[in-house]
């Protein structure tokens, strides 16, 4: 290997090492947008009338600002009670009345304890 190539190779390795070191120095704690990791009933599933909708999130939730609402195909809210965040603050549940067959949409808002807010929706079908 010629001297030029060796110098170039070493310079390249040094550059990568410097970049990696600088990246490690500045790596930020992740900006947390909490999001669902599991839903019951699951998204796009077909189930017997469920007694509740439960969503487990990636991070702890702020109970006062997080919520679940369930609407029917015509957009009417079907849950009579408000959703609650349990002792496990990553889990939020909303009780449901007896639901007739049809397609339902779950709207969720998850606010993590570090103030970041995320929201979404998914559907399930009651047979």
């Amino acid at each position: 290997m010629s001297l030029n190539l060796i110098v170039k190779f070493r310079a390249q390795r040094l550059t990568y090492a410097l970049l990696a070191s600088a990246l490690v120095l500045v790596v930020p704690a992740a900006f947390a947008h909490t999001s669902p990791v599991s839903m019951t009933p699951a998204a796009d599933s077909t189930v017997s009338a469920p007694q509740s909708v439960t969503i487990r999130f990636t991070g702890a939730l702020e109970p006062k600002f997080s919520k679940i609402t369930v609407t029917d195909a015509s957009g009417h809210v079907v849950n009579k009670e408000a959703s609650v965040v349990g002792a496990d603050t990553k889990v939020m549940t909303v009780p449901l009345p007896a639901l007739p067959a049809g397609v339902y949409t779950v709207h969720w808002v998850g606010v993590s304890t570090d103030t970041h807010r995320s929201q979404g929706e998914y559907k399930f079908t009651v047979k």
Partner: protein
Amino acid sequence: MDFVSALNILVAVSSDSSYALIVGALLAGYWLHAVTGPPVKQVTASLAGPVMRRVGMMSLTVLIVCHLVRPWFVASSMSGSTEFRAALALVPTILSSTRQGGLWYTNSVTLVVLFAAQSFIKARAPSIGRWLEMTTLCLLAATKAASTHASEEGDLSPAEISEFFHLLATSVWAGAIIVSGLVVVPRLTVLAGAPALWSYGGRLSKTVTLALGVLTLSGMYTAWRDMHSHISALWISPWGKILLTKVALVGVAVLLGGSARFRCLRRPATSDRATALSRLLRSEATVMVAILCVSGVLANTSPGI
């Protein structure tokens, strides 16, 4: 980016910068007291006393203002409302029912104690004042760590402890360099001469090297814990571009700091090297201000993946 998000970033940058400046002024005061030699004692006493006190009090005032407006921004972020009155109406709920509210009350008490320590306790009982300053600054870093994503694994979790040390080390590095590069070193160079500057610079360099060591360890831990989920965002998202900008700036700051250490402080003190050291530190301090600004934007940007 909407107006409220921009304002939120401005408050975050002001808060982090003023905290770092208080830490920097405290450290600079220690190092100045340690500079020996009768001809320079008057200069260093003046810098360590009135000048550092002024830097500390001005920074603390900014920190307190940022603290007072923070609940509104928390309410806006949690509710998704950028309307002033709507978010303001939620502030009592934030303060009474959320984790951020509890931490805000803790910070309020801590800031009152820090204000008392800086404004009159330090003048009457310097050692008690300094201990109070150090304790309250550590407590502020702890509550900041407890208010971030790192706290989601529980209080005093490894992630939260790592974040605490990361915040402290960042503040030591940024604060010490900015206060030294823009306030202390230019005055020492002119008024006290190279030997005093070398005595001060040696302590600054050792402390910053230690802070960089802590930053490397905590950064490695955070990278191991979090970055795998965001690595794909590094090259394609605005978040990634901001992070790479910060990487470049940190690289420049490390190179400037290394030059100051190896090209000046490791060699005998001369007036030419003193001038060069002053210029290098001023440049590093300017880069550090830019790093703090980019960090504020980065902390309020989602990786988007």
